[in-house]
């Protein structure tokens, strides 16, 4: 529908920010290291790099194991409550990591009432939650649903006939699951695990709330504490290399997903005996409890005691700014991804075709990296951009483009060119085709794309924190600031608004993940 050069232009523009970031960071690596970086190298970076690596590995492994175990339980076994767990295990996705970190830190810290009571009454002790281990636990509990969802869909869509074929060739059900079903689901599990690893690498909120030094907090400190943009850029370069490696892993896993043939008769679940069923319910219930029910309950309890004190005019201001930023950002992302998917459908130049994947690769780049990677070159070129929301929106679009793009791409895939040609041959004009064919078939995708990006933007922390105009506060920023000050209980009121918003797009998220496999 678009002219060829215009289609190419859309694609180039969508990919431009990621290109700017990569080229800019490469440039920073070529700049000689200043004193600040040497200081960082010696005192901070070894620790931060090690912590980042440990976190990425533990969280990826933990979320993969936990998610796969829960997925196998729900997809392959039948027990009372299976249906309930099947959807409720997605609920933890609605809690931003830094909110869960705040709840854990506030309630399990040495001085917290719960820990004091347990320590004095029962003599219980546990390692501090403000540690790499604590951060890993929080991240596992917020990120495992990605693996759970993708693995569950992969297992459920693996056809019953593969299990039957295995049993006809002499395998018990357990052997068949291990030798056939899990290998079949493995690429999906790997892709989800790579996604979890990217999120962990990108995480800023959780590690900042728990005072764990990682590359993202080091970047923040270099920029805001030492005012060394070059050092921040160089740390960002590190992060980008790790992110691109993970992206490569994810792409390879997805590529081998494409050959999987699924469908057919639905999997017959094995009914568990009462003891097994009780254990299954205990396991799933415990995970759901500590990752969602207990934190939400805690937030509500905290909020009810601080409700009146904090729900003043300022609170409405945070809410309004969050909604405006997220709403405008989501609108931009949905509009651009709509243009983008149409542009890709057309016959575009080879440059545009080659560069298109870059536009959707932004989700792999940590927010902190995008912030510094865009801020540095853009403010150098156009100094008047400082103090505006322009860079913030460009970074939003880059990082969350894939979130809005995926539903639009699946939506448009249902609209083959042949349909346009059929309408054309029946004499319809271009606006009529859009109004009568495209819009009715795409509006569901538009709604999904909007909801998913809106909520991700509401929860977004590092980009907003690093590129906002001075004093511009949103709900996420407010939670972060109160948390850093140790005011856990007061953070509850804005945090609940974020959790509530996060519940909204879960249904689309479930749908999108199942399309992805």
């Amino acid at each position: 529908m678009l002219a060829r050069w215009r289609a190419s232009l859309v694609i180039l523009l969508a990919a431009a920010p990621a290109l700017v970031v990569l080229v800019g960071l490469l440039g920073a690596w070529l700049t000689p290291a200043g004193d600040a970086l040497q200081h960082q190298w010696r005192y901070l970076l070894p620790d931060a790099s090690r912590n980042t690596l440990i976190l990425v590995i533990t969280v990826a492994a933990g979320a993969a194991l936990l998610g796969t175990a829960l997925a196998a339980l729900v997809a392959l076994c039948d027990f009372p409550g299976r249906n309930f767990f099947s959807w409720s295990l997605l609920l933890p996705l609605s809690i931003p990591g830094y909110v869960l970190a705040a709840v854990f830190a506030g309630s399990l810290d040495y001085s917290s009432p719960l820990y004091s009571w347990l320590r004095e009454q029962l003599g219980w002790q546990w390692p501090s939650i403000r540690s790499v281990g604590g951060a890993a636990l929080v991240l596992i509990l917020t990120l495992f649903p990605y693996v759970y969802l993708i693995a569950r869909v992969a297992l459920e869509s693996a056809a019953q006939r593969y299990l039957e074929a295995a049993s006809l060739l002499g395998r018990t059900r357990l052997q068949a699951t291990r030798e056939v079903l899990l290998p079949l689901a493995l690429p999906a599990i790997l892709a989800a695990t790579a996604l979890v690893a990217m999120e962990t690498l990108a995480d800023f909120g959780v590690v900042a709330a728990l005072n764990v030094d990682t590359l993202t907090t080091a970047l923040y400190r270099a920029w805001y504490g030492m005012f060394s943009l070059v050092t921040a850029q160089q740390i960002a370069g590190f992060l980008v290399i790790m992110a691109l490696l993970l992206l490569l892993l994810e792409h390879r896993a997805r590529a081998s997903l494409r050959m999987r043939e699924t469908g057919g008769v639905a999997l017959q679940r094995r009914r568990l005996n009462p003891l097994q069923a009780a254990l299954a319910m205990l396991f799933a219930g415990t995970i759901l409890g500590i990752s969602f029910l207990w934190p939400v309950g805690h937030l509500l309890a905290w909020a009810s005691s601080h409700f009146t004190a904090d729900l003043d005019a300022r609170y409405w201001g945070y809410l309004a700014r969050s909604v405006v930023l997220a709403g405008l950002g989501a609108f931009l992302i949905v509009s651009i991804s709509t243009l983008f998917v149409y542009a890709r459908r057309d016959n575009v130049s080879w440059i545009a075709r080659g560069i298109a994947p870059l536009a959707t690769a932004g989700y792999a780049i940590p927010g902190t990296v995008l912030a510094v990677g865009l801020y540095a070159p853009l403010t150098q070129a156009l100094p008047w951009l400082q103090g505006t929301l322009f860079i913030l929106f460009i970074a939003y679009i880059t990082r969350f483009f894939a979130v809005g793009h995926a539903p639009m791409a699946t939506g448009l895939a249902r609209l083959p060119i042949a349909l346009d040609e059929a309408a054309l041959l029946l004499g319809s004009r271009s606006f009529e085709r859009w109004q009568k064919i495209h819009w009715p078939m795409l509006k569901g995708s538009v709604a999904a794309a909007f909801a998913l990006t809106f909520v991700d933007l509401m929860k977004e922390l590092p980009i907003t924190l690093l590129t906002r105009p001075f004093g511009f506060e949103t709900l996420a920023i407010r939670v972060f600031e109160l948390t850093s000050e140790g005011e856990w209980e007061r953070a509850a009121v804005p945090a609940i608004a974020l959790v509530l918003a996060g519940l909204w797009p879960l249904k689309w998220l479930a749908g999108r993940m199942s399309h992805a496999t």
Partner: protein
Amino acid sequence: MRLELRDIHFRRDATEILRGVDLQLKAGDIGVLVGPSGCGKTTTLRCIAGLESITSGEIRIGDRVVSSVDRCLGAEVRRVGYVLQDNALFPHLTVADNIRFGLRKLSRDERETRVADMLALLGLRGLERRLPQDLSGGQQQRVAIARSLAPQPDLLLMDEPFSNLDARLRTELVGELRGLLKKLGITTLIVTHDQHDAFGLADQLGYMNDGRLEQWDTPYDVYHRPRTRAVANFIGDGVMLPAIGKDGHWHTELGNIEDPAADGSAELLLRPDDLLHDDDSPTQARIVGRVFRGADFLYTVQLPSGLRVLALAPSHHDHHVGETLGFRLANDHLVVFRRD
């Protein structure tokens, strides 16, 4: 090994899917089940394989009872090979690994020998490292057969083995498959909806309808001596010709046929090859449709009463729609369904 089904019933939820199936297959024979979709063909195979437990009856393979009311051997210990519909090749395993999958009880050497044998037997040499997705439909079919035969099962079951293949490949594979199964001497039961496949493969042919096996006979007998109207209608083309029995003859619009038992009102099964073109015949019929099939013509002709019947004519008998010709019955065999 011999296969025997005695009065098999199978119920899922409240629906009775099999209502008393009896069937015997001699060791080394090939049996074929045909019937409309939903008649219970596939369920019968699944019960024999041990993928479903029967509600009542008994299934024996050789001398071993594998299914009865209170006993159901698991599929993994039955020694039954089953080529599932759509093959169900493991997509993550190569051709050789798919074939090897059922052989883990063998020693390493035996296993590799067996895989090599199977590859050779089914003409798959050179494809052992390919993944199923890189094979053609016919090759996938062969791999599925090789995988099921590799553990040397006592019995082979096949569900719609040719459903994914085009017509030409089908005809080719049908002959090839029968040759292979006979060479191995393996007892085989095949489900298909295509009667041409069935005729090409079967020693014994069964027609299933509504959870019952209505006839279990040689293909010749099922075609020429159908026991019920349903069998007659499903197998081959044919039309029911009304007849009145009197004085040791069946009186029909196309002439009289001698039959000492002729009595009362009945219908005769008229196959296209039962009707001969004969210019001297008193019965004149008008051609209302014709299909040129290469080797012959299949004419649809309308009798004076309005009844339309089918007639086969040699390829050179080129007549046109609207022509009127004489026809008579070739009464060498007779299938009578009495009206009650």
